[in-house]
């Protein structure tokens, strides 16, 4: 299945891109996606403790949640509106 990944702020700088498509096996979870992205972009590694994930524009904290084909997953570093 295919996942659209969005990177913001420090995550964007470390991934070197703002968005990319990632192909994962059926049944893959957010944790699997994190592994795949780390393999692809090593500089992301130290950032994970500070990053929240949003699936289709809503925060998801359970990394064991299975992903759906076509989902958009955003890496959300610490927010600081205002």
């Amino acid at each position: 299945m295919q996942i659209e990944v969005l990177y913001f702020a420090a995550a964007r700088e470390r991934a070197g891109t703002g968005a990319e498509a990632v192909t994962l096996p059926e049944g893959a979870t957010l944790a699997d996606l994190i592994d795949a992205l780390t393999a692809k972009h090593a500089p992301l590694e130290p950032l994970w403790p500070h990053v929240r994930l949003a699936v289709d524009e809503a925060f998801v904290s359970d990394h064991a949640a299975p992903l759906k084909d076509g989902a958009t997953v955003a890496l959300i570093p610490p927010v600081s509106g205002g």
Partner: protein
Amino acid sequence: MVRLTDDPLDPAAVEARVRAADRGAVLTFVGLVRDHTGPHRVERLEYEAYRPMAVKVFEGIRGEVDARWPGTRIAIHHRLGRLVVGEVAVVIAVSAPHRAETFDACRYAIERMKADVPIFKKEIRGDGSVWVGLGS
């Protein structure tokens, strides 16, 4: 009543959106770019956002405010892009028949924004630049 924009913000225009004849109180919070953060001199800020989600979360906050403080009306405008010292980054205006709810609702909206709205701030300092909240 929620707006993300690359253009300068006008607090008076945001305030005007929540005024009405049945409201006796309007409280308007304006967040400005400060010339320092702790010991660091700040030259400018760069804001970016996950725009559709930021709007969605702001709208969620509006819904929470409506539910908790019936009779209030709230408008939230946030600037994005490059801002220099003294410019307005955010305006949150709340009206209500009486003042108490305006304070509680405005404070609540700001704290919720600071916690969950996907807007990111890079400080360009005299001695380098940092993503706020991350320190690098």
